[in-house]
């Protein structure tokens, strides 16, 4: 296109201003892309179908309290329950406190059933499953985690927990390949070991994860279970697993509203910055624009040239912003993914990218159109006089 030189040169006529504008656009797009992706990643947690089948029975006062294992007897009587498993957060560290990842004590047999999608049960060789259930010191780990520390089947992993003040030596019996990276940053071992080693854990579990036969039964089940234990020594609180996962997130307040209002504010800021840059860039070229029109450029051609400039400006900003966001996302997935398992799934989706590109294009067009339109319609003689 023969006008490209003119458009590019005009855009970089004031290099500093253009670069500053591109940078502020980039930062804004970066922020929006990351925030929206974070929201999307959390959303995908809550809409995961397997987790929709499950709920957690925990202590009413705090999810850090333990509850009697005997509560299982009541759960076993409920016809709507397909399977349930006991678990306890272990909080163990591997060699160094920095090596932190999610690890739980579980009831091995039922655990694999309740979390069969996450652990991808059908792909685990039956002999490994047998070993995991039979060996009291067995543990199963996700592939991502195993790769990270170079663990292989049969290796012994020492895990030190400061919560229980013990170190357990666990034999890796299963290395499973999950559906998502977040499902693989995970270690589970037999809860019996914990109950034997820690006196106050005897006959107690952290909570139960219950898998219902039908998700529509969950509200009724939760209600019935909590009512049943309402008069016992320890009351329970049954909540869906999503709600359980999101407990910590909800502590930050209504995250999604926050993300949307931040994004909105950022968009308005971008609009103002771009509109200002383009208005300035156009105003200082009044004479040049009138000269070009005298030479024979039509209003429409002038408008197109200016719009192309505005579009290019916002495209550069959004391109740079998206590139930064992608880098940050993969960094976040690697680093934060070890602390918060769900962060391992953190990616910027195509939808978010599309959203960002469309938003910046829209903003570019909108912010350029008004000054560009006015400049393109201004009487030529007036512009030539304005020196």
């Amino acid at each position, binding site marked *: 296109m023969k006008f490209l030189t003119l458009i590019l040169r005009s855009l970089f006529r004031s290099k500093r201003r253009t670069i500053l504008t591109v940078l502020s656009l980039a930062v804004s797009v970066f922020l929006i892309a990351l925030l929206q992706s974070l929201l999307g990643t959390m959303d995908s947690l809550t809409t995961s179908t397997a987790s929709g089948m499950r709920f957690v029975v925990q202590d009413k006062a705090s999810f850090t309290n333990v509850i009697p294992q005997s509560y299982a007897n009541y759960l076993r009587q409920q016809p709507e329950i397909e399977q349930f498993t006991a678990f306890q957060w272990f909080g163990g560290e591997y060699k160094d406190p920095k090596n932190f990842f999610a690890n739980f004590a579980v009831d091995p047999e039922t655990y694999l059933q309740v979390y069969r999608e996450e652990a991808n049960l059908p792909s685990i060789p039956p002999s490994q499953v047998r070993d995991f259930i039979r060996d009291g010191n067995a543990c199963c780990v996700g592939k991502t985690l195993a790769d990270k520390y170079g663990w292989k089947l049969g290796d012994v992993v020492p895990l030190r927990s400061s919560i229980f003040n013990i170190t357990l030596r666990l034999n890796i019996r299963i290395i499973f390949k999950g559906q998502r990276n977040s499902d693989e940053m995970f270690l589970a071992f037999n809860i019996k070991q914990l109950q034997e080693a820690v006196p106050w854990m005897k006959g107690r579990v952290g909570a139960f994860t219950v898998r219902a036969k039908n998700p529509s039964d969950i509200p009724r089940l939760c209600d019935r279970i909590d009512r049943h234990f309402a008069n016992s020594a320890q009351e329970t609180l049954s909540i869906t697993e999503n709600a359980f996962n999101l407990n910590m997130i909800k502590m930050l307040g209504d995250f999604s509203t926050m993300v949307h209002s931040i994004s909105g504010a950022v968009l308005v800021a971008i609009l103002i910055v771009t509109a200002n840059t383009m208005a300035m860039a156009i105003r200082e070229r009044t004479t040049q624009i009138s000269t070009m029109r005298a030479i024979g450029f039509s209003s429409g051609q002038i408008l197109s040239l200016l719009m192309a400039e505005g579009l290019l400006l916002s495209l550069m900003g959004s391109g740079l912003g998206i590139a930064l966001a992608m880098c940050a996302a993969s960094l976040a997935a690697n680093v934060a993914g070890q602390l918060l398992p769900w962060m391992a799934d953190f990616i910027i989706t195509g939808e978010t990218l599309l959203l960002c590109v469309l938003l910046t294009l829209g903003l570019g067009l909108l912010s350029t159109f008004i000054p560009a339109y006015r400049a393109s319609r201004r009487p030529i*003689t007036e512009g030539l006089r304005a020196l």
Partner: protein
Amino acid sequence: MATGDISVRLRNLAKSYWRGTLEIPVLTGIDLDIPRGGYYALMGPSGSGKTTLLNLIAGIDRPSGGELEVCGHALNRLDDDELAIWRSRKVGFIFQNYNLVPVLNAYENVELPLLLADLGRAERRRRVLRALELVNLTDRMHNYPRQLSGGQEQRVAIARAIVHDPELIVADEPTGALDARNAEEALILLEHLNQELGKTIVLVTHDPKAAQHARFQIHLEKGVLDRTVEVHDRPELPRILPGPEGA
């Protein structure tokens, strides 16, 4: 005179500005014929309407009344886009402050009018080089306007005004910002364009010496054509261009 021999034909042309309901007439009852290949200097005191008249002739302003036919087109009957196309083919502009595009180099500035025509890159290049040669600036074609002297800038502007081979060249105080030597050089260049390439030229100027280069001087007084004077003792034209004729 037959219409084809007339470049500019103005009949009872008028232009007024309105300040609220108050009409401020700037030009009234202008009748003027400029033949093809004519070289007319438009003179008159400041505020007499020279620029206004030139802008009407060049099709960048609209009259309030009267008829104007320029280069064979009744400009009143063209809409804004048609008028833009007409200008891109028929008119070359030279301004007092050169008005080069600062982000384009001399070559690209001269090429600008050709971008509006349907020409290939090679053909554009051929024409740009010829125009630059005409103003003797081939060696400066990669320079940007800020790297050129005022005189050189105006020569680039002149090259830009002729590169698309227009019939009419309009120049509003083209020497107003130049020193005597550069002014003289630019005027001689215009004279060559008129004599050797047959361009019709309308030149607005304050300077009686500059007006001596034209063949006729039109005097405007308070928006009315006062008189037209033929120039007899024109200075002899030194050869600076590789013209079509011999010595």
